[in-house]
C-alpha cells in the first residue's frame, strides 16, 4: 500500500528506463518511439496523481516522504511542465543523435524534482538533490559545443560545491537534532544549540538554492540557459525550482524559533530578486535574459517561504505561484524554441508581422512574468505579496514591488522590437509547428490560470503532512 503511494514516481522511473532501452534499439529515424514512451509515462504519472489528489495528507516510507497537497501539486506541475518541455523541444530534438537519451534524462530529473518536493527526511532530500542534479549536467552538455561544455562544467562544479554544503548542513542538523525525519528533527532541534542549528540550516538552504537557482547558487543558471538546447534550458530553469522551493518550505517550517530562519530566507529573497533583475537589465541575448529573469522570479517565490507557518496562505500562495511561473516561463521558452534564429532582443524585430500568434504568446508570457493581470503570475504575485505582508514582512513586499517595476524594463525591451518593422532581423528558418503550438497552448494556459483562478485555488489548499 505504501508503494502504491509512490505510483506517480514509479511511472517516471519505468518511463525513463524504457525510453533509454527503446532508444538503444530503435533506428535514428524512429526515435519518436522513445518520445511516445516518455509522454506516456508522464501522462500516466499525472493521471496517478489526479486519482489521489483529494486524499488526506499522510507520510509514507517511515515518514520519509510526504503525500499531501504540496507533493501532489509539485507532481502535477512537474509532469505538465515536462510534457510542455518535450512539446516545445520536438522540433529541435527529433532526429538528433541523442534524442532518446534526452527524454530519459528529462524524466529522471523530473523524478528528482518530484521527490524533492515530497521529501520529508534529510536523507531523502539528499538523494533527491542528486537525482535532480546529475541528469541536468548531462542535459546541459548534451549539445557538445564549446558553450554547452563550459556551462555543463560550471554547473557541475557549482553543483558539487553546493551538494557538499547540503550534505554538510544536513549532517550538522542530524548531529544536533538527533533525527533525519522532519517531525522528529523539529522536536530534537528545539533544545539544540542555536548556532549549530543555524549553521546546518544555512548549509541545507544554500544547497537547495543551487537547485532553485537563487543566490548564492545562481551562477550557473544564465550560462546554462544560454548555452544549452532550448528544451533543456526551459526545463532547467523551471522544473528543478518547483521541487526545490517546496523542499525549502518543508525544511524551514520545522526549524525552531531559536534561529532567525525567516530573516535568512527574506534576505536571500531580496538579494536574489534584486540581483537577478539588475543583471537581466544588461542582457541582449534572450536566453540569457530569461535565465536571469528566472533568478529574479526565485526571489519572489521565496516570499511565502519566508513566512512559512506564520500565515495560512503561505503554502497555497507558493504552490499557486509555482504553477503559474512554470507554465509562463515555459511559454516564453516555447517562443524562443519556435524562432531559434532570433537570438537577441533586436533579432525579434518584425516578429508580430511574420507570426502574430507567436508574438501574442510572447506578450502574454512576458507580461505574465511581469505580473500583469489577468495572467497566472499576477495571481501568484498577488497571493505571495498578501501572504508575506500578512506574515509580517511588509518591507519585503515593498522590495518585491520595486523589483517588479525594474523587471518591466527588460521585458519591454523584448516586447518592443517584436512589434516594430523588421529591419535586418534574421530570417526565420524552417517552420517549427510543435514549438508554435506549445507556445500558443502555454500562453492560453497562462491566461486560463489567471482567469479561472477560482477553480484552481481550491486545489492548492490543504494541510502539510509531517
Amino acid at each position, binding site marked *: 500500500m505504501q508503494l502504491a503511494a509512490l505510483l506517480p514516481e514509479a511511472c517516471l522511473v519505468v518511463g525513463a528506463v524504457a525510453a533509454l532501452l527503446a532508444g538503444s534499439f530503435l533506428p535514428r529515424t524512429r526515435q519518436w518511439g522513445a518520445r511516445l514512451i516518455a509522454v506516456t509515462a508522464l501522462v500516466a504519472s499525472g493521471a496517478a496523481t489526479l486519482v489521489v489528489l483529494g486524499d488526506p495528507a499522510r507520510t509514507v516510507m517511515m515518514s520519509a516522504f510526504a503525500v499531501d497537497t504540496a507533493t501532489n501539486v509539485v507532481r502535477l506541475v512537474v509532469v505538465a511542465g515536462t510534457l510542455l518541455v518535450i512539446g516545445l523541444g520536438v522540433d529541435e530534438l527529433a532526429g538528433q543523435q541523442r534524442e532518446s537519451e534526452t527524454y530519459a534524462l528529462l524524466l529522471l530529473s523530473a523524478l528528482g524534482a518530484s521527490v524533492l518536493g515530497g521529501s520529508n527526511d534529510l536523507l531523502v532530500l539528499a538523494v533527491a538533490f542528486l537525482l535532480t542534479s546529475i541528469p541536468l549536467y548531462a542535459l546541459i552538455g548534451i549539445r557538445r559545443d564549446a558553450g554547452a561544455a563550459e556551462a555543463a562544467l560550471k554547473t557541475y562544479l557549482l553543483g558539487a560545491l553546493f551538494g557538499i554544503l547540503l550534505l554538510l548542513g544536513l549532517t550538522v542538523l542530524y548531529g544536533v537534532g538527533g533525527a533525519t525525519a522532519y517531525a522528529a528533527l523539529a522536536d530534537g532541534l528545539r533544545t539544540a544549540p542555536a548556532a549549530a542549528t543555524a549553521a546546518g540550516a544555512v548549509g541545507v538552504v544554500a544547497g537547495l538554492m543551487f537547485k532553485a537557482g537563487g543566490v548564492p547558487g545562481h551562477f550557473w543558471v544564465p550560462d546554462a540557459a544560454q548555452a544549452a538546447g532550448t528544451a533543456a534550458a526551459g526545463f532547467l530553469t523551471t522544473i528543478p525550482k518547483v521541487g526545490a522551493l517546496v523542499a525549502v518550505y518543508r525544511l524551514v517550517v520545522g526549524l525552531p524559533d531559536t534561529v532567525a530562519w525567516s530573516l535568512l530566507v527574506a534576505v536571500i529573497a531580496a538579494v536574489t530578486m534584486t540581483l537577478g533583475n539588475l543583471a537581466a537589465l544588461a542582457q541582449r541575448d534572450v536566453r540569457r535574459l530569461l535565465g536571469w529573469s528566472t533568478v529574479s522570479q526565485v526571489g519572489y517565490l521565496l516570499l511565502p517561504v519566508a513566512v512559512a507557518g506564520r500565515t495560512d496562505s503561505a503554502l497555497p500562495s507558493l504552490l499557486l505561484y509555482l504553477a503559474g511561473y512554470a507554465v509562463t516561463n515555459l511559454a516564453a521558452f516555447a517562443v524562443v524554441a519556435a524562432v531559434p534564429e532570433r537570438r537577441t532582443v533586436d533579432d525579434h524585430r518584425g516578429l508580430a508581422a511574420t507570426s502574430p500568434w507567436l508574438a501574442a504568446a510572447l506578450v502574454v508570457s512576458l507580461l505574465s512574468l511581469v505580473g*500583469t*493581470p489577468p495572467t497566472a503570475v499576477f495571481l501568484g504575485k498577488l497571493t505571495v*505579496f498578501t501572504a508575506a505582508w500578512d506574515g509580517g514582512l511588509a518591507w519585503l513586499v515593498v522590495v518585491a*514591488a520595486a523589483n517588479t*517595476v525594474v523587471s518591466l*524594463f527588460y521585458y*519591454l525591451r523584448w516586447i518592443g522590437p517584436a512589434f*516594430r518593422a523588421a529591419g535586418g532581423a534574421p530570417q526565420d528558418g524552417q517552420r517549427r509547428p510543435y514549438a508554435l503550438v506549445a507556445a500558443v497552448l502555454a500562453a492560453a494556459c497562462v491566461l486560463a490560470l489567471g482567469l479561472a483562478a477560482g477553480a484552481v*485555488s481550491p486545489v492548492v489548499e490543504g494541510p502539510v503532512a509531517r
Partner: protein
Amino acid sequence: MLSVIVFVPLAAAAVLAAAPGVPDRWARWAWLAVSTVEVALVAVVVAGYDTPAAGGLAFEERVRWIPSVGSSYHVGVDGLSLPLLALTAAVFTACAGHAVREEHRPRAQAALFLFLEFTCFGLFVAQDLILFFLFFDLSIVGMYFAIAGWGHGQRARSAMKFFLYTFLGSLALLLGFIGLYLAADPHTFDIPELVAAAPLAGSPGVGGLVLAALLLGLAVKTPTVPFHTWLPPAHTDASAIGSAVLAAILLKMGTYGFVRIAMPALPDAWRAWSWAILTIGVVSVLYGALVALAQTNVKRMIAYTSVNHMGYVVLAVGAAGVVADGAREARELAVTGAVTQMVSHGLITAALFLLAGVLQERTGSYEMDHYGGLAGPAPRFAALFAIGAFASLGLPGFSGFVAEFQIFAGSIGATWGAALALPGILVTAALFLRALQRVFTGPTRGKSHGFGDLRAHELWPVAALLTLALLIGVVPWPLLDLVAPASATVVDLVSR
C-alpha cells in the same frame, strides 16, 4: 447589462485581431459601428438609471471569481461612475470617427482601441479592487501599444517611459489594495464592503501608509505634480486619438480612484492628510498652468493644461476632507464639481488633442512658431480650436465653467486655502489666448501656407465633443442631478 457594455468591445477586438482577412475599410467602420452601439447601450443605462439608496449601486452584478482571496466579479454604477461611462462611450466614438481615414494598420488599430475601450468601461464599473486593478493595468498595456505602434517622434522611448512610470504607480496601488484587504475582517477586495467597514479607521499609522500607497498610485496616473513627467512626452509622441483617449479617459482613472476608493475606504487617513492633498492640488494647478504657458509646442501645452485641470479635481477632493463637520454643502459642491470637471476635461481635451493631431497630419509640426495666420487658410480649424480653447479656459456657457465654479465655490467654502489656486484660471486663460494669437492670427506665414482645412472625419467628431461640452455648460442640471447624490454619499463617508 453592464457586462454587455464591457465585453462587447473586447469581443469585437478579438474578432478584428484574429481575422487577418478583414479588409481595412470594414475594420474601420466596424470600430465606429461598435462604438456607436456602445453609446446606445450606455444611453439605455442612463435612461434606466434610478439613483440608488446612499452607498448603493444600480445595475449591480456579482459572480464568484476567486473566492479564496475574497475577490469577485462585481460591477455596478452610481452617480460617480455613470458620467464617466458616458464620457468613455462618447470619446471613443469620436476617436473612431476621426480614424475612419486611417491608413496605418487600421485593423490592428481598431482592435487595440476597442480593447482599450473595454478596459476603460471595465474600470469604471468595477466594484472589486482586483477587478479595478486588472482594468487599470490592462489600460496601461493597451496605451503602451497605442503609443509605440501609432505614435511618432521618439515613440518607443515615450511609450517605455509611460509604461514604467504608470506601472510603478499601479504597483503602489496594488500594495495599498493588499493593505486594505488584510486590514478588513473578513479579508475582502470588495469595494462596497471595504467602504462599509472602513477597515483602517482605528490605526492611523498603517492607514496613513496604505493611503500613501494609494495616493502614489493614483497621483501618477492623474497625474499630479511631481509625478507628471511621463505625461508630456507620452502626449507629444502619441497619435491624435491615442492622446485623446489618454487625456480624456485614462487620466480620469486616477481621479476616479480618489472618489471611488481612497476617500470612502480610508476616511480617517484622508481627513488627516487632506491638507497635503489640497496642497498637491494647488501646486498642480499653478505649476501645470505656468509650465503650459512656457511651451512653444501646441501638444505639450495642451498636455500641461491637463496637469492644471486635473489639479482642480485633486484640490476639490482634498478640500472635501479638510473639515470633518460643517461646511457640508460646500464640500458636496466641491466633490460634484470634481466629477463634473472629469467629464468636462474629458470632452474638451479630447477635442483639442484631435485638433492638434491635424497639425501633425498636415505638416508634421506642433511648433507654434512654424505657424501664423492659420485662420486664413483653415477657418473651420481655427474656429473649432478657438471654441475648444475658450471651453478649456472656463468660459461661462461651457462645461469647464460649471465644473470650475463649483470646485472653487465648494473648496473655498471649506477652506480659504483653496483660493491660492485661483491664479491658475488666469494663467490658463492667458496661455490659450496667446496660443490662439500666435497660431491663428496675423498674416499667413510658415507652414500655414497651403494648410488644408478640416475634412468631414476631422470636423464632426470634434464638433460633437464640443457640442456636448456646450450642452453641459448651458443645461448642467441633468448631469448635476446625477452626480450630486453620489457626492453627498462620498462626503458622508469621508466625514465618518
